[in-house]
């Protein structure tokens, strides 16, 4: 990291902070190391605590590793056998992956739309009602995913749930006549409702914080130029908030790919109904539920690699290089 002496012009065109005459020499010399010092605590936590286990997962993915191997401390390398087994399983390509990708896309899109709309709405409210409403939506986030899933399952119980009772009362459908948990589309519709419900407050609160940093003058200037609310949103709000939107989209995608509890706890979602399996559940039943730690690690590696690729693509397209 080169440090420019005080009097030269900064060669990288303004990306680095100006070097002022008043900056003490000691700080100037340390600037090269500064970012790494600031990053040190984070990198230590992640590196020491999480990097080694992740390498271990990679190691295990190359083994046929069960409980007895774990307890006896021996290895059982099988090379890429696990990978071959997973990648040549037609069930993965025909059912699991389509379910996972489709579900993730729908959830991310809906969560972003709902979360952003709610954030915009909250931004337009007065302080008191904004606080009250934000606290109310926080409750949706605060209810544990496990509890929330059970509540949705009860509400949608095909025999005695609130939804079917309402439908029965309206004469649309008889109670107990159809089990929508066994059908892929209806199953995931309910799961989507659950996941979006649990996830939109996170987006809303994050976007709201961002919205409040957008200077009013930008909106006023645009309004003076005759822009409608819709145009103002796309020309002013979105560009300004692009970094925050990117974070939300990337993290939501990663989480929605890995969804486990919300699917597993639904009727048939624990592997009983094979057509509704997603990657999270499938990876669990294929491996850990059977005590196959090697296979589980393989699927974990594959999933991480997939998400890595997706994230890198996102980062390239959603963010211009300088902004990153």
């Amino acid at each position, binding site marked *: 990291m080169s440090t420019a002496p005080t009097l030269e012009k900064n060669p990288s065109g303004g990306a680095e902070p100006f070097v002022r005459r008043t900056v003490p020499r000691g700080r100037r010399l340390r600037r090269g190391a500064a970012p790494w010092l600031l990053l040190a605590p984070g990198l230590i936590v992640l590196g020491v605590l999480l990097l080694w286990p992740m390498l271990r997962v990679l190691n295990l993915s190359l083994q046929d590793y069960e409980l007895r191997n774990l307890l006896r401390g021996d290895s059982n390398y099988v090379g890429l056998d696990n990978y071959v087994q997973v990648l040549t399983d037609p069930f993965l390509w025909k059912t699991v992956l389509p379910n996972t990708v489709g579900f993730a896309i729908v959830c991310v899109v809906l969560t972003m739309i709902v979360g952003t709309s709610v954030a915009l709405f909250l931004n337009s409210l007065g302080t008191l009602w904004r606080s009250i*409403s934000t606290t109310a939506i926080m409750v949706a986030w605060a209810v544990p995913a496990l509890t929330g899933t059970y509540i949705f399952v009860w509400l949608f119980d095909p025999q005695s749930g609130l939804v079917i009772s309402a439908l029965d009362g309206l004469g649309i459908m008889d109670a107990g006549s159809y089990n929508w948990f066994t059908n892929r589309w209806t199953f995931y519709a309910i799961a989507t409702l659950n996941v979006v419900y649990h996830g939109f407050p996170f987006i809303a609160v994050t976007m709201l914080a961002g919205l409040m940093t957008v200077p009013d003058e930008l909106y006023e200037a645009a309004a003076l130029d005759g822009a409608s609310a819709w145009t103002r949103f796309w020309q002013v709000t979105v560009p300004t908030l692009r970094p925050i939107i990117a974070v939300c989209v990337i993290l939501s995608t990663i989480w929605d790919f890995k969804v486990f509890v919300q699917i597993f706890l639904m009727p048939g979602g624990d592997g009983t109904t094979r057509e509704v399996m997603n990657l999270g559940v499938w990876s669990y039943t294929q491996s850990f539920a059977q005590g196959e730690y090697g296979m589980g690690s393989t699927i974990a590696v594959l999933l991480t690699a997939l998400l890595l690729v997706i994230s890198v693509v996102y980062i390239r397209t959603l963010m211009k290089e300088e902004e990153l």
Partner: protein
Amino acid sequence: MNRRTPLSQAAKALGVVVLISLSLFPFYWMLSTAVDTSPLSRGASLLPSGITFEHFRHVLFDAGFLRYVRVSVVVALGTVLLSGVIALLAAVAVARFRFRLRTQVLIMVLMVQMVPLEALVIPLFLQARTLGMLNSLLGLTIVYVGFSLAFAIWNLRGFVAAVPRELEEAAYIDGATWGRMFRSVLLPLVAPGLVATSVFSFITAWNEFIFALTFMQDGAKYTVGVGLRTFFTQNTADWGSVMAASTLITLPVVIFFVLVQRNLAKGMTAGAVKG
């Protein structure tokens, strides 16, 4: 921009009502089951079949749930503070400095979120054992810090980057040290970002289950995430207690949010952003 026509007022009011009722409906269902005299036979009725506080009493006193809450509060607050500090420093590093490997560091931070949790259970447990972090609240806190750093760093990076450099320089010109500048210029402007980050860290630590269960040898150190699961036995589930425990789990998060929002959101309206 602020046309206060009666129509827009009414629309807003309706919007607020719809938003609040939809957001709170599952919570209502949870709470009403928690006070229901016979939660198993509820079915579709909107109202509980009878009100009782027996489930709450059982959860709080027989099952000692307050002990779990105490442990969780310590761990969660520790996670929020530690993760906030570490992430803020890291965010300043990636937002204010340009250095090689910057993109790679950001992606590496994100990678932690990508690995399925179940795959990490055994390796992380063994690593924690090697580091002597087992059976300690601090050890568990550090694990949760690791899990919450991704969002914290990425989110705060945006807020730090949004603070105009002129303000920083102005502070330096006035003779401030980096520390002083950080506290009086950077922090208030980044504070709104800290709201979402803090709540996220809190919830990560608060609801986590599998590591809290496997790390602790002493049942007295279990968190509420574990405590909730104690009402699911091998063949049955005590739904009344599950819902009562869930209510007790939900409330501190909301309280935390209200406190954080009240104190940090002030920074937003300070007007410093407008330069």
